[in-house]
């Protein structure tokens, strides 16, 4: 049973054909890394899965519900799909605790105290239990990204989409964020990551999807695919990043 299902998805920006018929099935509990050069359509693909971008042909469904970019659908979808961005996108006028509690209170209609309990638990989980009352600007990039993860987790999503979430971080902070992801993967969370962290993709991911020119060029078990690439393009890509 697939949790996320893409069927011949085509996406255009004006005349530019970004996604050229993507087929992809992601099972619950899978950790899938999407790799590829910039401009290959990785982020666009991710943003189609949660309705932030429209697609023009084909079908996407999450948890058996069809994805469209209509506002109401996107919001229903938000209950099963969490997303973490490259630039964290925390709300700077709210404390860390308020950042996490906001959506559970106003979207899921939880009480303040329930939301607070969840927020504290999620912060503990990402190792920031003592930052509840801090403002985002007082935190390092790595800490901010972990707050963003806690904020997404507080909505209890079935799948978490991560859009290059370590790319804006200083190298020494990347590890903390990856450790949180690794822990989530071990707990059985479904993760779809657009990433440049090849080691992470190999060691923690189950599957790697290599995108090239708007197509799924090659995909398979992460260890096999990265050690024995079949296509010339993937060989070149691996050679360039490792």
């Amino acid at each position, binding site marked *: 049973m697939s949790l996320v299902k893409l069927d011949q998805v085509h996406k255009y920006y004006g005349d530019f054909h970004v996604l050229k018929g993507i087929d992809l099935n992601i099972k619950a509990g899978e950790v899938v890394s999407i790799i590829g050069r910039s401009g290959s359509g990785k982020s666009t693909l991710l943003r189609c899965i*949660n309705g932030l971008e429209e697609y023009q042909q084909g079908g996407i469904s999450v948890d058996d519900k069809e994805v469209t970019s209509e506002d109401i659908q*996107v*919001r229903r979808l938000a209950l099963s799909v969490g997303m973490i961005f490259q630039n964290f*996108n925390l709300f700077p*006028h709210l404390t860390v605790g308020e950042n996490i509690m906001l959506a559970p209170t*106003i979207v899921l209609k939880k009480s303040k105290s329930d939301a607070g309990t969840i927020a504290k638990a999620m912060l503990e989980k990402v190792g920031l239990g003592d930052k509840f009352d801090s403002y985002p600007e007082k935190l390092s990039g790595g800490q901010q990204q972990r707050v963003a993860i806690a*904020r997404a987790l507080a909505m209890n999503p079935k799948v978490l989409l991560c859009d290059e979430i370590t790319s804006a971080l200083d190298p020494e902070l990347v590890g903390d964020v990856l450790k949180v992801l690794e822990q989530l993967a071990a707990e059985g969370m479904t993760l779809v990551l657009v990433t440049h962290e090849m080691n992470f993709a190999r060691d923690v991911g189950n599957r790697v999807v290599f995108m090239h020119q708007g197509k799924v060029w090659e995909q398979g078990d992460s260890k096999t695919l990265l050690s024995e690439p079949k296509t010339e393009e993937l060989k070149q890509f691996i050679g360039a990043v490792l």
Partner: protein
Amino acid sequence: MIDFSNWDIVRNLLFATQWTVLLSLAAFVCGSSVALCLSAIRLTRNPVMVRFVKVYIELFQGTPLLMQMFLCFFGLSMMGYEISAWGAAILSLTLFTSAFLVEIWRGCIDTLPKGQWEASRVLGMNFLQTLRFIILPQAMRVAFAPTVGFSVQVVKGTALASVIGFVELTKAGTMLNNATFEPFKVFIFVALIYFALCYPLSLFSQFLEKKYHVAR
């Protein structure tokens, strides 16, 4: 002929000043409310509504406030709607104020990163929730200073209401001049009172600018 002492002139002008203040406040409050609605409409990205707001802005920014006042006052009465000078002044100043505030606030809202909208959306918040909890609180901090700065224009704009017969500070000055034949003295007083109203607003605006821009 009655003799007017300086105090008589100032006393009468100060009395009329309350109408200037009242008119400014009314125009500012009504103008802000209309601008708030127009800003929300603009943000829905509904093409027809966005177009409407755009035309509104162009129309009321692109014509002199005095013309708008004439149209509100004389135009409406010719169409059969009885409107007082006070009503026409508030109406036209509201249109004028809102047209400028929408533009000022647009700039403030657009300084917020697109990611704030996207993050709200993927957390399941709807448009109004996003506006209320995420966008407005942040945009307001940026908007305070230029909004207070613009209020100076509103205060000065109320002077035009004298032309349609509303007795505020400028009109009182004209009337006193007709009685005293001392234009220089009378209008110096008028100017000083306007300055006393506007200068604190400018200072306040500068203070807000420093406060919020350093804090960010």
